[in-house]
């Protein structure tokens, strides 16, 4: 409706400018579809080119990961492929220790996501649904902790985990990831839970529900979209982390996939097929999460930022 109105108006304006006679009224109408077709082509050309440019490195790494080392040595890493093999994957997976590293990553990521979202949803529930004293100060304090540059924490966290005897243990990594991330999740979930109407909770109270039941049976199910979005987002963040891992962990066999990838880079210098295969293995889980939960993932980024 509005679009029609505008075209009509623009046509009018054109007519006035061109001092159009009655016969000219039809003239601007004919080029319009051609102009639109041209614009559409132009759009697809620009967007297509941009996408191709963006996807090129990904295609390249996929191609490189399936070449043989001899091929790369003979023709260079930037040449077109002359061979096809999954040997690079085998070397990265078995000899390069990426299988273990991937398991380590999952052992850290899954509990961290569950634990930090569980704890954060509890805190967000309490802060958004009850008139706790200093609720706003607490909320912002928790968010502030997440905004701190991690560098200020690295040395003390490393020493703290040594002191506790959990240095070089995956628990320490889970602990610090939960502690560091929880503030942000509380903030996002608080914003979401605040919008749930009070009547729903009151009805549950009248039915005799205790706070735990309200949290678990009423608010948490209603917060599912936000939880899904944050799960997808936090999964990639924690899975992709390098800094906390190399700060808290020492032993190679305990390192997650990102750190292991750096190890691979040192161990297989210029064996680009192995390094590329390693990168593919390290990226596969987060790409899978992205493709499966694309909507939630994008929603998560916006939840955190625009709210």
């Amino acid at each position, binding site marked *: 409706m*509005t679009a029609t109105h505008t075209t009509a*108006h623009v046509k009018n*304006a054109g007519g006035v400018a061109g001092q159009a006679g009655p016969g000219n009224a039809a003239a601007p109408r004919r080029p319009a579809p051609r102009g639109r077709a041209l614009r559409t082509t132009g759009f*697809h050309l620009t*967007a297509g080119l941009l*996408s191709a440019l*963006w996807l090129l*490195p*990904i295609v390249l790494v996929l191609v490189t990961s399936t070449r043989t080392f001899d091929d790369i040595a003979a023709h*260079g*890493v*930037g*040449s077109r492929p002359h061979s096809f093999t999954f040997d690079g994957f085998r070397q990265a997976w078995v000899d390069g220790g990426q299988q273990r590293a991937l398991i380590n990553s999952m052992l850290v990521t899954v509990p961290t996501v569950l634990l930090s979202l569980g*704890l954060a949803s*509890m*805190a967000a529930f309490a*802060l958004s649904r*009850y*008139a*706790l004293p200093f609720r706003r100060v*607490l*909320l*912002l304090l928790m968010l502030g*902790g997440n*905004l*701190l*540059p*991690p*560098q*200020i*924490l*690295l*040395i*003390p966290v*490393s020493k*703290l985990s040594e002191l506790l005897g959990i240095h070089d243990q995956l628990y320490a990594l889970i602990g*610090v990831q*939960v502690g*560091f991330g*929880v503030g942000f999740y509380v903030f996002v979930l608080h914003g979401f839970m605040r919008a749930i109407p*009070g009547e729903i909770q009151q009805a549950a109270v009248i039915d005799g529900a205790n*706070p*735990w039941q309200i949290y678990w049976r009423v608010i948490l199910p209603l917060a599912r979209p936000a939880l899904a979005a944050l799960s997808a987002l936090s999964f990639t963040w924690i899975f*992709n982390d*390098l*800094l906390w891992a190399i*700060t808290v962990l020492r032993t190679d066999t305990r390192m997650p*996939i*990102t750190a292991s*990838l*750096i190890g691979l*880079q040192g161990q297989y210098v210029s064996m*680009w097929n192995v390094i*590329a295969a390693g*990168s593919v293995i390290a990226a596969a889980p*987060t790409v899978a999460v992205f493709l499966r939960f694309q909507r939630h993932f994008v929603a998560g*980024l*916006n939840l955190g*930022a*625009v709210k």
Partner: protein
Amino acid sequence: MVLIGSARRSRATRVPPVVLAFVLVPLLAEVFWVFWPALQGFYLSLTSWDGLAAPKFVGLGNFSEMLHDAVFRTAAINTVLWLLLFGGLSAALGLGAALLLQQERRGIGFYRAALFLPVVFSLVATALVWQAMYQPDGLINNVLESVGLGGWKHAWLADQDTAFYAVIVPALWRQVGYVMVLYLAGLKGIDPALYEAAKVDGATRLQQFRHITLPQLRSVNAVVLSVIVIDSLRSFDVVWALTRGGPYHSSELLSTYMYSTAFQSLRLGYGSALAVVIFVLAFGVIVSYLVRAFREAD
């Protein structure tokens, strides 16, 4: 709203203990792993410490040492440059991509996904992908050769003059999609009636952009700015994986210098002081972010 009103009347008695625990347990986790270490970090910045013997209090000695530390100067300048280049370009390119891809039309989902896909990669994987492209016999040099710019061929990561910029490109490649998503959401929130009115008034596309789009995006701009500053100061993975700050510290950032000072040179006091500098640089953004959050939490 009704609930909050009624709860406010008897705030002291109504909050059940389990609800208090709901807040206190996560808060304690954060105090234990973040706030307490942060305080220690600030204290350690005033000490000289090798990690074995007890830390020795040296006051502001670490900070005065920075004044004469050439590597610190390089790292600080690079960090600011990173902020401007990485930040400015990712904001500009992200906005440009969002403007290009804002309309719902056929194929738009694919284009958006293509630009967005790198966001889910770890910076380490991103770095290694680009490292292959930067090799002397890699794709970039091959392309330069084939278009007749063979003279521009370079060992991009090994050259002091190019290493820093060669590290920014992968970081940008990954960040643009993220910024684009933020702007896409912002553009979606603009009332189409504004554009209609502007068209009625005869505004050109450029005028519409200047007088409607940009002002309407103000809150998104603030968010993007905070994200960019915080991400820039945290940037570590991509540099560490590509150059470790080298060659000759030419791609050193404060974050990488802090890490190598602390965990490789084992100068934990000086490393803490570098971390404090990073904190000071981030402080303004942290506070403005919190102020905005404070207003919204009301």
